[in-house]
């Protein structure tokens, strides 16, 4: 299979969906003439013109709301946030308007909108620009949240998100835009269902539940652990909401040991939810306490050494795996 970058994969997904459906358009800061702050929308203005690829002022609350309004009458906007740290400016629109409309209107108005953009800590961007937002958004009934970690998942999940009739948040990894990986050729339709996890590496001794930035970290950790005779299963959630609970329980029932590797902060985190569900449903399958690694519970420091200390890492993950394996 051909290899393309995560950025190219997203670009193909956008182009294919905009081409396919005249109701789909892309809107956001610098998406058109600048070709995207991270070049994800490179070439789309030239190809589709300014009615489909729309530059906005720096006005997240305004254009997120505009997108939701357009979705109320059946358009299918893709709203790009330059980073999801900036989506917090539009929090009221994303949390109060998009997911509530269907219920508040007694089922009359669904909101087929996609919010997408880079999410999670990048490198030394400081506290305001380093937010991982998946816990915040996954908390809201009515929203769907996915977190692609590979080029293939990025393309397949984004295309599915655009076609979904609900508001979907596609959280991309800023650090992965240049990562390469195998993706089906453009003439093959690639759709990956929301709520379907993927085992990125099979193993029988321990399940590492990960997503987004912690996926390559887990794969690297798993390689190191083989040298110690531990065969880890790397379980990529891919979607946070809906959550593929059945697949989680299946994997854990096989390995009986779990470490959850999160890119977000630990308090009220995704790992807490998953750990709860595991112990609630298959308590007897567990041979060890569930461990979690996540960010340290502090605002992100700028200093490189401190930032590294805050972030989850392969070393922290390996230590946790050893602990649950009593190694």
């Amino acid at each position, binding site marked *: 299979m051909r290899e393309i970058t995560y950025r190219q994969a997203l670009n193909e997904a956008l182009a294919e969906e905009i081409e396919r*459906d005249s*109701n789909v*358009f892309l809107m956001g800061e610098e998406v058109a003439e600048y070709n995207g702050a991270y070049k994800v929308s490179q070439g789309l203005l030239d190809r589709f013109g300014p*009615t489909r690829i729309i530059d*906005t*002022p720096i*006005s997240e*609350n*305004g*254009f*997120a*709301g*505009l*997108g*939701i*309004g*357009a*979705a*109320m*009458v*059946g*358009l*299918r*906007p893709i709203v790009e946030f330059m980073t999801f740290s900036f989506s917090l400016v539009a929090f*009221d*629109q994303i949390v*109060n*308007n998009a*997911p509530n*409309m*269907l*219920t*508040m*209107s*007694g*089922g*009359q*108005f*669904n909101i*087929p909108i996609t919010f997408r953009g880079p999410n999670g800590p990048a490198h030394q961007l400081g506290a305001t620009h380093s937010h991982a937002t998946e816990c915040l958004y996954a908390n809201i*009934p*009515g929203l*769907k949240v996915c977190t692609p970690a590979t080029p293939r998942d990025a393309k397949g999940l984004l295309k*599915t998100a*655009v*076609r*979904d*009739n*609900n508001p979907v948040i596609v959280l991309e990894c800023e650090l992965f835009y240049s990562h390469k990986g195998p993706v089906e050729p453009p003439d093959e339709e690639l759709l990956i269902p929301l709520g379907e996890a993927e085992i990125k590496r099979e193993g029988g001794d321990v399940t590492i539940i990960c997503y987004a930035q912690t996926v390559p970290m887990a794969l690297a950790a798993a390689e190191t652990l083989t040298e110690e005779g531990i065969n880890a299963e790397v379980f990529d959630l891919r979607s946070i909401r809906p959550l593929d609970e059945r697949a989680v329980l299946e994997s854990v029932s096989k390995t009986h040991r779990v470490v959850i590797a999160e890119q977000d902060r630990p308090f009220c985190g995704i790992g807490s939810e998953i750990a709860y569900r595991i112990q609630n449903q298959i308590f007897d399958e567990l041979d060890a306490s569930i461990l979690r690694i996540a960010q340290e519970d502090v605002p992100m420091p700028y200093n490189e050494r401190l930032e590294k200390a805050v972030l989850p890492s392969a070393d922290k993950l390996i230590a946790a795996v050893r602990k649950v394996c009593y190694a």
Partner: protein
Amino acid sequence: MQQSEQRDEVEMLAMMLLIRRFEERASQQYQAQKIGGFCHLYIGQEAVVTGAVAATRPDDYIITAYRDHAHALARGTSADACMAELFGKVTGCSRGLGGSMHFFDRKNHMYGGHAIVGAHVPLAAGIAFAAKYRKEDRVTLCFFGDGAINQGSFHEALNLSALFRLPVIFICENNLFAMGTSVKRSTSLKQIVDRAEGYDIPGEIVDGMNFREVRDKLSEVIESIRKDSHPAFVEIRTYRYRGHSMSDPASYRTKDELEKFRLDDPITRLRAQLTREEKLTNEQFDQMDKRAKETALASVKFAERSAEPPLENLYNYTYVNGASA
């Protein structure tokens, strides 16, 4: 033409009466604890939405804030569906899931009922964006109170609408108070309409107690927008006779102020105009008022005998199934 205009005005007067009688019933039912949550009444402001609706086509879009009962009624939602919504019944215009502040009626292009102050103004821009995107000549009417004009979402929506030349009318129903805070204490401008100037959007001030002035001014604005898509701003000066919500005794204003506006009542005013022009007899008016009262009372009966939303459907409206073709 003359004939149909007369009929329209009499019909719109009947609508104003229905709105008032409906709201009076809602007030009574709220006090009887048949209606929960917050309940904001429109009494005194009836000429604003009826005048505006009289200027629209049925396929134009309407969106408003939480003082929304009248907007649904004026758009053609039945009094039954409105009262049932207040009662939280499944026969309500939002199936009992929205409540007083979240009336929706897709069929009549009433796009809500939005309860976070100012948060629906960008939605209006989006609806207008969709009309322009599809090359339709439909206009979006976005109603909000004087309290909304200091929210960021309001300003962002005005800027975007001007930038993209969207076919939307921002209608500020200036009733002088944002909850209990007077415009003088909330807004740095001498007149609200000047907000529009900052975005190069044409603005007008309209007397909201005068149905004809509202209708005529909005007809002009709508005609201009249909010819060449652009946003517009209308400050409609009006007054609510009741408090901000049912729980508000409105002690922040004087009895004299209230009396002054009551003397200029929009229903009395249109009635007097029509009577003077011999288009309406006292008898006809009394008949219309009687019908409005009966419709409002019947809506209470309808709401009372309607069913609650079924508990087993609790999870049915969180997500909609399916995907686009």
